[in-house]
């Protein structure tokens, strides 16, 4: 049996950074470590002949989700004047549950391993596009509808209740045009 060094390195990076995510006392550090974990996952996809998935993983998770979480942590860092810190309670119980989950997942992986072709089949991004816009078109469109609904919902939530009268320039713009017409 040959040992895959590339996989070992990537897997070690993912596991260690994931541990840092849950153990970091500083929420900002936790979010940035999560970025490392997600990058490691992308590297895993790239190793498994899925470059498209790897690219999308970096673009949406590291570029999008982590950035959003950073904003979320930034605006909620102080609550009623008290700094918010990450506290881990019941780490022993968590360890037991995590170990149990690991055993279950390891069993499932071990039982189903022979059915996975090795090496993984190479799917070009054209194949993925055909599958998404052909066989799975309805699911794809329903998902985009869901995302659209989420965007509209977000806009409704943050909309200002008393909108400025349209057409009038803001005070700052008026001041600028007075000085420099």
């Amino acid at each position: 049996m040959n040992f895959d060094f590339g996989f070992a390195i990537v897997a070690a990076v993912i596991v260690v950074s994931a541990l840092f995510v849950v153990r970091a006392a500083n929420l900002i550090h936790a979010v940035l470590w999560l970025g490392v974990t997600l990058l490691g996952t992308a590297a895993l996809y790239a190793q498994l002949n899925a470059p498209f998935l790897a690219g999308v993983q970096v673009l949406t998770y590291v570029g999008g989700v982590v950035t959003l979480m950073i904003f979320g942590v930034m605006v909620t860092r102080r609550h009623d004047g008290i700094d918010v810190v990450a506290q881990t309670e019941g780490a022993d119980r968590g360890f037991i549950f995590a170990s149990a989950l690991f055993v279950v997942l390891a069993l499932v992986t071990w039982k189903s391993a022979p059915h996975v072709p090795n090496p993984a089949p190479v799917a070009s991004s054209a194949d993925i596009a055909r599958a998404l816009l052909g066989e799975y078109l309805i699911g794809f469109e329903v998902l985009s509808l869901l995302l659209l609904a989420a965007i509209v919902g977000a806009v409704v939530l943050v909309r200002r209740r008393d909108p400025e009268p349209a057409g009038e320039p803001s005070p700052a713009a008026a001041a600028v045009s007075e000085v420099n017409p």
Partner: protein
Amino acid sequence: MNEFLQGGLYGGGIIVAIMSSLLFVLWTERKMAARMQSRIGPTFTDPLGFLQAPADVLKLLQKEDIIPEKADRALFNNAPLLGATVAIAGAAVVPFSATIVGADLEVGVLYLLAVGALGVLPVFAAGWGSNNKFALLGAMRAIAQSVSYEVPLVLAALVPVILAGSMKLSDIVAYQSSHHWLVVWPFFLGIPAFGLFMLAMLAESNRIPFDIPEAESELVAGITTEYTGMKFGLFYMAEYLHTVIASAVASALFLGGYDGPIAPGLWWMVLKTGLLVVAIYWLRWSLLRFRSDQLMALCWRWLVPSGVVLVVGAAVWVVFAG
């Protein structure tokens, strides 16, 4: 040869070549800016001022390395390194000629966009790690700007992808050399998409006229406020690297890359990239800075809708005329 060794040598060669080109880019910008402002620019190091940039590097290396007492040291120290790494990572997939390309990925355009999205992290690490109001304000502006302008950037990059039917940069260049450069035909799609791409690329890298994150009249120097010596130098270098690589990508996507009327090859790519870099600096020294809200309005009210129209237009063109 061992493939790791080969990859290292090849990648190292490309990195060294781009880094060396920065010296020339810096010199060109200095002299150009000087002429535009009726000055003559640097002359003290040698009559042409060409040694000014190496002299600056020597100066930066000698500066005291100051780390603020309450800074988040891990983030503060690693942010410049990360920034420079992410900036140069894009060069990996750019086809400089038919044979000089680091990794001709099947998902090259996607890779470029993903690397661009990564650029947010070092900016945030620097701004937050400095523990300085101005740095943090600059970082927040930079992130808001990068996230917003990523949308028109993706839409503009989709136009050549749709027209050439591939995300591989060498395929896009090959399509342009067998058909027409995208800015020539179909020009009504190519020229607007090219303009949109350049604008969004400039805004994503926080360059003038989109450099509000380091607006020196309001924010001291934005994220670089607390940085001294070569750490500041790395941020400065990352900015120039980004400009050069963005220009190279734009020439590959829209201007036919290494294709040219006579003797296609590396020198066409260098010429096109150089012209685009000069155009960017021309803009930089001519225009004033936008205000933050103007920038967002420009992005969401004008650039995103026109990007959507361009993508739909490209799809229609491929189906009915391509």
